[in-house]
């Protein structure tokens, strides 16, 4: 059972109160973009075994979207943070480095590097 801390209402929300929203930090390629970019935006998603960044919605609670950083293999949660950002905050990246040195995910990695 996955339990995530909702950064908006502060509860440790059980997975059954939440709804997954897929990968986090996608760049929206819309009108005017190349077919390639649009294709990747729609279909080219990460599917890692290990560190992953996701969007979740506290659908049966405050209704807000937030981000979560977790390990897909162990279900360990490194942290959650509000949705109003385009990249994982430094504190979250540091927390991941403490547990998974040398991690990378898309363009993100250990903030010390």
């Amino acid at each position: 059972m996955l339990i995530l801390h909702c950064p908006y209402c502060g509860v440790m929300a059980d997975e059954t109160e939440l709804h997954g929203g897929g990968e986090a930090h996608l760049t929206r390629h819309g009108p005017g973009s190349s077919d390639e970019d649009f294709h990747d935006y729609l279909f080219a998603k990460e599917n890692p075994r290990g560190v992953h960044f996701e969007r979740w919605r506290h659908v049966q609670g405050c209704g807000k979207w937030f981000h979560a950083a977790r390990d897909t293999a162990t279900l360990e949660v490194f942290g959650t943070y509000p949705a109003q950002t385009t990249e994982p905050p430094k504190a979250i990246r540091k927390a991941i480095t403490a547990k998974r040195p040398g991690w990378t995910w898309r363009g993100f990695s250990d903030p010390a590097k």
Partner: protein
Amino acid sequence: MSEAASALSGAAYEGGLVRVADAGLQGMVTLRGDLEAEAIRAAVREASGCDMPGQRAITAEGDAAVAWMAPDEVLILGPHARAGDTCAALEAALQGQHHLAVNVSDARALFTVTGEDAAVREVLAKLAPVDLSPGAFGPGDFRRSRLAQVPGAFWMPQAGVMRVICFRSVAQYVFDLLCTSAAPGSRVGYFEA
């Protein structure tokens, strides 16, 4: 004007671990906006007599209460007949301030679960993924969660009393859930001292 009626017309269940009852008509006004804004805080105080609640809290004053629903949403409770006026008062007070005030009284159902404190907590704990132990949840707390398969919210005005809100369309489902959860012989005794 048709006569207002609560979802289950005062249905009640007794004989189980607790008493479950349709709480009748209840005025409910949803207010969305910047809860930190002084204009909104003042309007809420004026309309309900209650202070703005903090995160996951509910404040009450007389027959009115204000419940924290989300960082930008509160639910103002009061007498059913006054909900329209409350809404209009908010509208008038918040001219020029970005907000949304809607009378949702007839879109929701309210139930009261009463009995022994430990039993009341247990009946809800069987249905919602929420820590209902006395140290984690008590009077003054408000929680939006799910009740089995549908969204719901609840709070404890005092020990041994739980008020449960759900959408009117699922009122019968939630009433049946609460009754099943309170069925005789189903005591777990988890919260008993």
